[in-house]
């Protein structure tokens, strides 16, 4: 059936059509932008961390008794944790990746003031750090026991060797020859250290920082009353080991208490909580708006069917088959939807432009628009199906009824 007579019928009855088209247009604009933002956030959350996030947990131990000896306690705790069934490895650390708190500093390729530096995120570990984080060493070697520096909390010494992530190595040495090179840490590049290893990837503390993957591992352990341990377990045993480890540590030393035994996944979830919230809220909004629009189409299509019972009967009497009637309403709706999506595409770009300008939202990727158009076409056809089928059931004998 040709479009022209349907179009002219629709145009002569335009208020309902305009309302639905406008509604579809705004829906398209919202859905495009919302789904785009959702995907952007989910992509961010889903970036590889380089670590065995799902099987790692963190323990904080705080010594409070005057007799508490941090170095002894740490050694005992480490031996105990590493010997626990289900534990792959454990290490003392200063800061927790993905947690939002950490040690940010800069590395330079030359010493001296005013040298261009690359900011990065320093994590202290001992020789077990690589394995406990589940990092993949792609070049060089791990730290040796004799390279581990023991410091108290005030100390500002820096070790002679570091392991850096691929991202940090490439940033410092764009030619890819970072291994074995010397880097300078701290203000004025006071501390020289040799890169002895490169790990494929390790996300740092601040998940929304552009330098997230520029991490540096420094072989330091601190002898202070506040310490953190990272523990990596065999897959699937994290929660059980977490509980057992807490109990063991709680009772092993009366001069301290254990707090914040939490999984690394938990820290990550908290860091991304607002992104997850945004994605979830936008998801709900998208689902609701599609529902509302679908109901709007159903409502107005029903109205339009009810208004045209007589003419449907007449068409049937004049030889229209049921499927001709269904097709009529489908095509009519499809045309209205199409007008809506055309206007909506422009609106989507406009809304995005506005979001980009006012808020820190990325510009929309073009293919979201055709996908959304397709989705709205399908939604429109599904929504109009009910009223259209009802229209097809109008008996042709209606035509001879006088009222």
């Amino acid at each position, binding site marked *: 059936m040709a479009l022209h007579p349907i179009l002219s019928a629709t145009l002569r009855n335009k208020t309902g059509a305009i309302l639905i088209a406008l509604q579809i247009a705004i829906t398209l604009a919202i859905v495009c932008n919302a789904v785009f933002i959702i995907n952007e956030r989910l992509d961010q959350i889903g970036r590889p961390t380089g670590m065995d996030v799902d099987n790692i947990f963190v323990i904080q131990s705080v010594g409070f008794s005057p007799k508490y000896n941090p170095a002894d306690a740490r050694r005992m705790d480490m031996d105990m944790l590493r010997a626990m069934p289900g534990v792959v490895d454990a290490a003392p650390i200063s800061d927790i990746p993905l947690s939002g708190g950490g040690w940010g500093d800069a590395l330079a390729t030359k010493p001296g003031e005013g040298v261009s530096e690359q900011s990065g995120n320093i994590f202290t570990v001992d020789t077990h750090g690589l394995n406990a984080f589940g990092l993949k060493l792609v070049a060089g070697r791990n730290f040796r026991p004799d390279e581990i520096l023991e410091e108290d909390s005030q100390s500002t010494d820096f070790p002679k060797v570091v392991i850096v992530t691929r991202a940090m190595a490439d940033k410092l040495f764009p030619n890819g020859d970072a291994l074995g090179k010397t880097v300078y840490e701290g203000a004025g590049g006071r501390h020289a250290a040799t890169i002895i290893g490169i790990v494929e990837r390790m996300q740092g503390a601040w998940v929304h920082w552009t330098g997230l993957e520029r991490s540096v591992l420094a072989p330091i352990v601190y002898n202070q009353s506040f310490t953190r341990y990272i523990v990596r377990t065999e897959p699937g045993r994290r929660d059980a080991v977490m509980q057992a480890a807490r109990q063991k540590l709680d009772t092993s030393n009366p001069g301290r208490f254990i707090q914040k035994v939490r999984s690394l996944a938990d820290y990550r979830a908290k860091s991304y909580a*607002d992104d997850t*919230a945004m994605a979830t809220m936008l998801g709900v909004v998208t689902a609701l708006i599609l529902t*509302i629009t679908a109901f*709007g189409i159903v409502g107005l299509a029903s109205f339009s069917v009810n208004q045209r019972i007589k003419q449907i009967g007449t068409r049937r009497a004049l030889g229209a088959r049921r499927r001709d009637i269904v097709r009529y309403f489908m095509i009519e709706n499809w045309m209205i939807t199409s007008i809506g999506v055309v206007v909506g595409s422009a609106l989507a770009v406009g809304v995005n432009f506005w979001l980009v300008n006012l*808020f820190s939202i990325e510009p929309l990727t073009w293919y979201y628009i055709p996908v959304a158009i397709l989705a709205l076409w399908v939604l429109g056809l599904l929504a109009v199906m009910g009223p259209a089928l009802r229209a097809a059931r109008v008996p042709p004998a209606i035509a001879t009824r006088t009222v």
Partner: protein
Amino acid sequence: MFIYNLRLAWLSVRRNPILSVLMVGAIAIGIGVSTTTLTVYHLMSGNPIPDKSNQLYAVQLDSRSKEATSTDPPTQLNYRDAMALMHAHRATRQTADYITSLVVHPPRVEQKPFYAVARVALSDFFPMFEVPFQYGSPWEKADDESGAQVAVLSHDLNQKLFGGANSVGKSLQLGDRTFRIVGVLAPWSPTPKFYDLENNHFGDTEDLFIPFGLTVPMQLQSSGNTNCYGSAGDGTFTGFLNSECNWIQFWVELPTQADRDSYMQFLNSYVQEQKRVGRFPRPLDNRLQNVTEWLNFNHVVSDDSRALVALALLFLGVCMLNTIGLILAKFLRRSPEIGLRRALGARRSVLFRQYLVEVGIIGVAGGLGGLLLAWLGLWGVRNLISDGARIAHLDWLMVGAALLLALAASIAAGIYPAWRVIRMAPAAYLKVQ
């Protein structure tokens, strides 16, 4: 007449229950979504201290090294500058403060020691920020720098340690020192936590407060943000205090514009003086920002929540279009009745009012439904957002706003359809189609 209109409206609502439910549902969802996002926005952007927000200023000094690239000076001061400003006493009130972690040894032996967050501050902190006391009072001004071991407990910590009883005068062991409790706060949780935007905009109030003068004797370290411009010192605590590491928040109370101007002059002359001894290598860029400016400067209202409000309002637009369509459908279906009433002598304005009463009823029902949805939505937000509890609860203002918005939206949605149907000539409806 209004009662008659109400009755007619109710009959009409009942006549098309599905259409009515659809209309009420569309408005309810629109209102629910907008109220949820607006509430979050409203609570995020709230003024936590409205009567004094123009008198309290956060102090910024640009003590950074030449290489620093950001356009804004640091949000915190280093120890040397903080001490200098403190000792100058140029403001009506002033406080230098930061947070630290302390081991609390509960007086009841069955409780294990635990870490508490302490705010290290000056006694002016309490009157400046209008902190309410349940028991006792702030410590004496004299104790600010005397090294006196006195503490003010938060309501929650007092609850935890002393079961909420008046603990003023009791002693409490913090770390390896014994403190005397001088005050207990009434529940206090300014939203946003404007006095410390460095560490979590919507976080909880600290567990306890101790005098700034304890920094050196206890070698306290900030557990909040520390930004170093240049070396972090020689490894000793004194070295750290003398370094260009910024970790102290500095607030002043300046009641008048003149006070503000003279304080600014004071800051500039202080920095000029420091320049002479080789500090402050950058051009003069000192700032005093009042609470509102400070909240904006620190982007307390997240872009996400603004974007959500924008999208939610568009969403409400869709719901309204939807409702206009449905109301139009409904009114047009009733055309013969309108024709009859017109033929029987009803004036247009009377019918118009009848329709507006009807959409008003739909609006109120939609608004109530919307509040229910908003309540559900905020419950969801509380579980989703970090510190959501503070910024996701309905207050009476938002309840009223939601109902008004629903009423306005539905009446706005009803005006066109009502106008459309009453505009036709009465005969047009009576004629058999």
